[in-house]
């Protein structure tokens, strides 16, 4: 196993990546897929179970009509063909988080097939083919106890909670996507982002990756340039954020390139992504691929969605994200490129909402693409998850515009809102953030700055007026940025009897 990775930029000079994504979405139904237990997150372990989702002997599943409707909506939004007739199937394997030791899923008869989703990134549109969308039930959760990492390796025993078992899960599988070159990681991330926005718009799931209601596996293979056959593909799991999608694809490309460069073969396997280090490691080695012994689920009868009903659902599709972005861009007067930047950062709706709250579009855009994205990255969350609302951002922008806040003070105000959860005006008042331009208030600070740096004073008196910057800086520091810099500069020069 080679340990040095080739630089990313080199990888795509020698190899063509092919990517694929498998996404699991927990549907936001009230009850589980095959029983009436609540499908909510966060309850005490094993308090949301019944004979059906626990798989007790004698129990039988009954399909949730809303889950089926949501799946069809997803399929329609992804331009799929909806099956006229299909069945559920049993996927048989043993694992303690699966009460029946088979999962009710769909095999060769998925509910939706052959769709696509356009993904815009860096000025390009990539049409990602959708192979299938099917419906299945989620598993329970195992906690591994006794090891040092809380992971399954090294654990001495495990504990199982079946609250999640039976929650409706939609699996969306893309077709392989070639031709993205060096943009593969970015395209992968953009696809998941776009898909997430689409699912949110459809209101079928709360799609929170950190809570597990949106899960992603990334498939990556490399084809040597000029070769006709695609390379061996790996599947990487435990990709728990949009950023991780990009990092995992990128790492896999580099890792596989290193393997191929060394003349070795890429092993077809399932790998695990490590958030903290950004690397993938091999999962448990398996002697042979698992044979799930699929057969049609005898306890459920076939689904034959009524074509009229399907069409009525199509008529009820809301405005999808791509269309909405175009409309918002027009309303904001943003250029294609600006729209792209906002979409990539995931802030289109935030900018639009800030503008709707009264801020000038350009200011709204600058704040969200700039300081707020930076704060989001520092906190490791999406901009939409920051503890500040578009209305509050609009207020900050308004305060800057009326001269009450300098940019620096405005940032402090934003920090205050993020930290305390208080309103903008409350933070400004509490921290005394309003720009100070009162000459008397500044006098003491100016005198102190002058006294502290006699050499600079000498320079100024000697004609180097520009050196006043150091003294202005000192006053700004002493007043925690609240002083009006222009006024300070004038004050200092006056006191020193210097002129511009």
């Amino acid at each position, binding site marked *: 196993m080679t340990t040095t990775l080739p630089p990313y930029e080199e990888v795509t000079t020698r190899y063509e990546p092919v990517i694929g994504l498998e996404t699991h979405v927990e549907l936001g139904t*009230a009850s589980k897929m095959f029983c*009436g237990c609540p499908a909510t997150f966060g309850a005490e372990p094993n308090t949301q*179970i019944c004979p059906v989702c626990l798989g007790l002997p004698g129990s039988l599943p009954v399909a*949730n009509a809303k889950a089926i409707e949501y799946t069809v909506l997803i399929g329609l939004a992804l331009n799929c063909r909806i099956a006229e007739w299909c069945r559920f199937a049993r996927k048989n394997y043993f694992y303690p988080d699966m009460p029946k030791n088979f999962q009710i899923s769909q095999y060769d008869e998925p509910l939706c097939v052959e769709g696509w989703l356009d993904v815009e990134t860096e000025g390009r549109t990539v049409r990602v083919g959708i192979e299938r969308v099917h419906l299945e039930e989620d598993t329970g959760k195992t906690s591994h106890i006794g090891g040092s990492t809380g992971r399954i*390796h090294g654990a001495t*025993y495990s*504990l199982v*909670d079946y609250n999640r078992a039976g929650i409706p899960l939609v699996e969306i599988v893309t077709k392989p996507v070639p031709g993205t070159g060096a943009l593969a990681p970015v395209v992968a991330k953009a696809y998941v982002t776009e898909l997430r926005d689409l699912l949110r718009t459809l209101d079928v799931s709360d799609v929170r990756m950190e809570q597990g209601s949106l899960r992603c596996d990334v498939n990556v293979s490399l084809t040597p340039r000029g070769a006709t056959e695609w390379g061996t593909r790996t599947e990487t799991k435990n990709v728990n954020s949009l950023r991780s999608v990009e990092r995992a694809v990128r790492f896999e490309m580099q890792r596989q390139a290193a393997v191929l460069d060394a003349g070795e073969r890429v092993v077809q396997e399932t790998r695990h992504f490590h958030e903290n280090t950004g690397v993938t490691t091999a999962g448990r080695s398996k002697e042979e691929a698992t044979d799930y012994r699929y057969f049609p689920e005898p306890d459920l009868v076939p689904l034959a969605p009524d074509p009229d009903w399907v069409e009525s659902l199509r008529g009820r599709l809301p405005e999808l994200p791509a269309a909405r972005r175009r409309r918002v861009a027009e309303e904001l007067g943003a250029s294609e490129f600006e729209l792209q930047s906002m979409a990539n950062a995931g802030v289109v709706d935030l900018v639009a909402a800030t503008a709707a709250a009264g801020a000038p579009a350009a200011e709204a855009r600058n704040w969200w693409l700039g300081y707020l994205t930076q704060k989001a990255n520092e906190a490791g969350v999406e901009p939409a998850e920051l503890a500040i609302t578009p209305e509050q951002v609009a207020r900050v922008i308004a305060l800057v515009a009326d001269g009450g806040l300098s940019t620096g003070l405005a940032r402090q105000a934003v920090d205050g809102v993020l930290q305390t959860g208080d309103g903008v005006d409350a933070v400004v008042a509490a921290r005394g953030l309003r720009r100070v331009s009162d000459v008397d208030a500044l006098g003491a600070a100016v005198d102190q700055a002058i006294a502290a740096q006699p050499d600079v004073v000498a320079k100024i008196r000697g004609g180097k007026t520009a050196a006043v910057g150091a003294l202005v800086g000192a006053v700004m520091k002493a007043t925690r940025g609240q002083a009006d810099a222009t006024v300070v500069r004038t004050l200092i020069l006056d006191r020193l009897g210097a002129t511009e």
Partner: protein
Amino acid sequence: MPDNPPAVGAGGATAGVAGRSGITRDEVAHLARLARLAVSEQELDVFAGQLDVILGSVARVQEVAAADIPPTSHAVPLTNVMRPDEVRPCLAREAVLAAAPAAEDGRFRVPRILDEEA
């Protein structure tokens, strides 16, 4: 096709059957592992012999020319049986955990899943 069903105990005779119909001891061992069934060496011998005979008999389904016959997975011609998305009462946790071989912290306790070397 024969008019009469096979005689009692006439298991193994499978003249003219398309496709192989034997099962080896190794295959039985492999299947037992897949099905999480520990089998002793002696059981393996007995099962392999019995299953070979049974498989030889059931393989007769291959005699039937059925290329264009659709398979039946459900005897009832029902479709679209569903329930509304409504919450119903759950089981009490104590009732469920009372039956568990081992429980801890409100959860089912199982021995470690992975071998230490894995």
